[in-house]
């Protein structure tokens, strides 16, 4: 089915199942520990051996020699595989760095070898007995040092956001020079880690020349293509299966070393092998969100109307890599006739930079939305009003192009009302509660909507059960549940009559999970397959499909109702379809919007920042399940607090690696850091997007949160911090005098 005209009325509009806050259908499995994640598939590969991966001890250079004799001779060892005996390997189309080093080493902790042994303890011990001689080369590891000479480079995040290398509208320089009120400030965001709770893990088993990997991957199709390409064999000999995924956030978008090394180890040992990457290896072995340096210039009339916007961002990546597209939202967010966007990319020899939840916008809004707060203050305007004054209903670069839907102003107004924004003192540093300075902050949330082609197969069994099969993944996003809701709504049955099977490359190819496209795209694919199944049912029952209503387990036509089950009495009915998209996404700018409100308390003595209240108001099309969608947003808000206050991969610029490469050193929010969170979804249905009339929320929830926290901290203290994370050392020496505060 092709979606090329705006959706008319359809069965989803009934919203009897879709749009309801159903508990997750996979919930009982997850809370009882019976949902099998990749490393836990005992039944599929009984007697699997254990693999342990050794990572490179240098960031850049080459391996002069590997001596595995001591490891080979260690108890229980069945195989040791390095580049010396792995055979020729290709590189996945979506990988920047290859997944097995040798003889060149491209980054620290790049996989060097795998040891396969009878037990985990034996494999781990033997990995320490591999002697590797490295020749350390020189590399570039310091973004600040490389930035001044970094060339303009456009690019895509591979997850939906793109930035041109240089984009000009009007005459920015003249307008900025002429503007009565201007801001010119530079902001930095650090390298960040996905740090999903389930480590990269794979069980690999060969059957002759056929390979199956049970793994943890967000994009089955990409993993399938790239693993076949890496190993150099036909994709039809490979099966990838990933029904449960312990978090991804973009970290599991691509084929990773666990899958490649497990496959190589299993081949060498002639037996199935299971591998989980150790936590301390994940941070340097895999991808991360690259650090950025962002210069923002704003020029405005005294009324607050922006006349000039410039956003220039620099990030770094390995040779052949792509930029962190931090300027992407600035093309679309606020009106101004004169605009300049520039994206620079430095070559760095750190681990591979790549997509992490809301690549581009997450980092870009951390900077842009502080700049908007600073500018509002210069103009003497309320930050909510300043944003409203500069709203646009058309693409600012192409004024003939409308947004399919844009309710940013309503998000801001409704949020301000609910949050008690009026209580904010525009003069920072004046509200206090005992020894705590109190501040309120706001920021806009923005993330583009992306539609991806997505297929599904739907079966109606003789028992009346509707089974959906698609290689879509559920990474915590609620795919199982919203897909079940979609099939139930379309076929007119209860949620308990629907079975959803996901994550298997033998199923029809789906959108996968990334770029917040998964919910809308995958359910649209299921919608398409269900339309076909409805036709097959009607045909079997001798009815006109166009005149049939599917409800309450019945097919109704002309005042007559027939049990749906009767259509499959003589054999299962199966329908397969893929939803594809026409040009509506070009005709209309499709985006999601929101407003974040945050209250922080800053300890007047220590400078410690604590988040006290959070609210997000989101406008993101139809919400397929308010319960799971809300969870996506609060989870994103939590990650936003991490980005604002604590998350930073610390670079050793001498040796070229992330120093704090475990969960003790790389701090993420814990229970004590996160207060009760409120989320409001505006009632929307976007008919330009898909028959589901839905968009994504999972990344929107993160966009802007960091700036809302930073703006609240400024409102509390009067000290502006432009370098994330906002650790207390960055403002402690400039905080208001405690004595003065006491007297006041």
């Amino acid at each position, binding site marked *: 089915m092709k979606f090329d005209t705006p959706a008319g009325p359809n069965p989803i509009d009934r919203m009897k199942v879709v749009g309801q806050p159903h*508990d997750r259908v996979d*919930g*009982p499995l997850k*809370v*009882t*520990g*019976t*949902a099998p*994640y990749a*490393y*836990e598939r005992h039944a599929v590969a009984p007697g699997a051996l254990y693999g342990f991966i050794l990572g490179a*001890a*240098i*960031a850049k*250079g080459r391996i002069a020699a590997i001596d595995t004799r*001591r490891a080979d*001779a260690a*108890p229980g060892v069945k195989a040791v595989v390095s580049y010396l005996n792995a055979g020729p390997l290709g590189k996945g189309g979506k990988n920047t760095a290859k997944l097995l080093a040798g003889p060149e080493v491209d980054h620290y902790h790049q996989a060097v070898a795998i040891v396969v042994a009878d*037990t*985990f*303890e034996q494999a781990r*011990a033997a990995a*320490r*007995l*591999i*002697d590797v*001689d490295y*020749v*350390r080369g020189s590399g570039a590891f310091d973004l600040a040092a490389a930035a001044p000479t970094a060339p303009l480079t456009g690019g895509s995040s591979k997850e939906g956001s793109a930035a041109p290398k240089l984009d000009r509208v009007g005459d920015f320089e003249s307008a900025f020079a002429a503007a009565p009120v201007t801001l010119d400030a530079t902001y930095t965001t650090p390298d960040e880690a996905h740090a*999903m*709770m*389930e*480590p990269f893990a794979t069980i690999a088993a060969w059957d002759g020349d056929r390979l199956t990997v049970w793994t943890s991957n967000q994009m089955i199709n990409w993993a399938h293509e790239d693993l076949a390409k890496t190993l150099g064999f036909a994709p039809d000999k490979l099966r990838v299966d990933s029904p449960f995924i*312990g*978090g991804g956030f973009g970290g599991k978008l691509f084929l990773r070393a666990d899958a490649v090394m497990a496959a190589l180890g299993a081949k060498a040992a002639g037996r199935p092998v299971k591998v*989980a990457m150790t936590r*301390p290896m994940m941070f340097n072995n895999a991808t991360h969100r690259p650090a950025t340096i962002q210069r923002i210039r704003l020029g405005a009339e005294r009324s607050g109307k922006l006349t000039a916007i410039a956003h220039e961002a620099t990030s770094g990546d390995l040779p052949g890599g792509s930029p962190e597209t931090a300027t992407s939202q600035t093309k679309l967010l606020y009106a101004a006739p004169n605009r300049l966007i520039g994206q620079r990319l430095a070559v760095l020899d750190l681990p591979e930079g790549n997509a992490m939840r809301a690549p581009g916008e997450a980092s870009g809004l951390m900077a842009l939305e502080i700049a908007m707060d600073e500018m509002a203050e210069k103009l003497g305007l309320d930050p909510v009003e300043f944003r409203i004054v500069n709203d646009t209903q058309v693409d600012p670069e192409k004024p003939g192009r409308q947004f399919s839907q844009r309710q940013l102003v309503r998000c801001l107004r409704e949020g301000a009302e609910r949050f008690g924004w009026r209580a904010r003192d525009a003069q920072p540093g004046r509200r206090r509660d005992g020894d705590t300075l109190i501040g309120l902050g706001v920021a806009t949330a923005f993330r583009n909507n992306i539609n991806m082609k997505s297929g599904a197969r739907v079966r109606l069994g003789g028992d009346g059960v509707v089974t959906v099969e698609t290689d879509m993944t559920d*990474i*915590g996003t609620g795919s199982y549940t919203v897909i079940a809701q979609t099939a139930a709504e379309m076929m007119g049955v209860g949620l308990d009559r629907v079975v959803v099977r996901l994550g298997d490359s033998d199923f029809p190819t789906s959108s996968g999970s990334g770029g917040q496209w998964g919910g809308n795209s995958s359910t649209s694919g299921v919608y398409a397959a269900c339309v076909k199944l409805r036709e097959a049912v009607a045909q079997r029952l001798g009815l006109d499909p166009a005149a049939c209503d599917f409800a309450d387990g019945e097919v109704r036509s002309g005042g007559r109702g027939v049990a749906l089950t009767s259509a499959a009495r003589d054999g299962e009915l199966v329908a397969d379809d893929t939803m594809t998209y026409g040009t509506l996404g070009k005709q209309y700018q499709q985006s999601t919007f929101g407003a974040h409100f945050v209250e922080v308390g800053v300890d007047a003595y220590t400078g410690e920042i604590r988040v006290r209240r959070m609210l997000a108001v989101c406008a993101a099309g139809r919400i397929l399940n308010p*319960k*799971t969608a*809300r*969870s996506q947003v*609060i*989870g994103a808000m939590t990650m936003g607090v991490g980005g604002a206050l604590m998350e930073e991969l610390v670079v050793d610029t*001498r*040796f070229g*690696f992330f120093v704090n490469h*475990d*969960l*003790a050193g790389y701090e*993420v*929010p*814990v*229970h*004590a*850091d*996160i207060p*009760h*969170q409120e989320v409001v979804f505006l009632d929307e249905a976007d008919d330009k997007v898909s028959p589901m009339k839905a968009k994504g929320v999972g990344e929107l929830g993160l966009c802007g949160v960091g700036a809302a926290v930073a703006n609240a901290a400024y409102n509390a203290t009067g000290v502006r911090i432009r370098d994330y994370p906002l650790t207390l050392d960055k403002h402690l020496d400039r905080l208001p005098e405690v004595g003065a505060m006491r007297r006041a």
Partner: protein
Amino acid sequence: MECTDGLHLSRRGVLAGGVASVAVAAAPAAEARLASAAPPAMMPVSLEVNGRHHDLRLDPRTTLLDTLRDHLQLTGTKKGCDHGQCGACTVIVNGHRINSCLSLAVQHDRDRITTIEGLGTPDRLHPMQAAFVRHDGFQCGYCTPGQICSAVAVLDEIKAGIPSHVSHDLATPMRPTNTELRERMSGNICRCGAYSNIAEAITEVAGAAA
């Protein structure tokens, strides 16, 4: 400092790069001896897990976590870090919660262990498991068994009057306030960020139990 060649590092460089040089330097004599030695002697250990008795012979290096996951195939208990940094491996041993990755199985001879599988099943959920489903106190589900085991133990700790860092008054009975719950649950990381919902789930169970 410029470092272009591993053979010409200064002493300070070698020290600073200690982490980076682990594999380069990994040839101590002790390990070389171990390599040629016979497999380590196995040790017997008896565990009572979820009411069932197990007699095992284990490599003494095996953690309690790996014993549960790999030897007893109780994979409800998760490995998030293997370093005591995330709480995914939380189980209840003799009534107290621990990070099972941080202790060896042989330290637990004759101990009574409750894992997530011992609390409830999909058809017969423990009240805490049911509350997590109702409040959507999880997303990917990987931290969830650890969160639930911790939550059950936390309510017992509060009932037993065990103070925490945020307990202000030790003379009056402990209350499962939001602050107490969040403080006590902070060893269980949820990167999906379900904290707000988890706090509501625990509060509901605490209220019902009070």
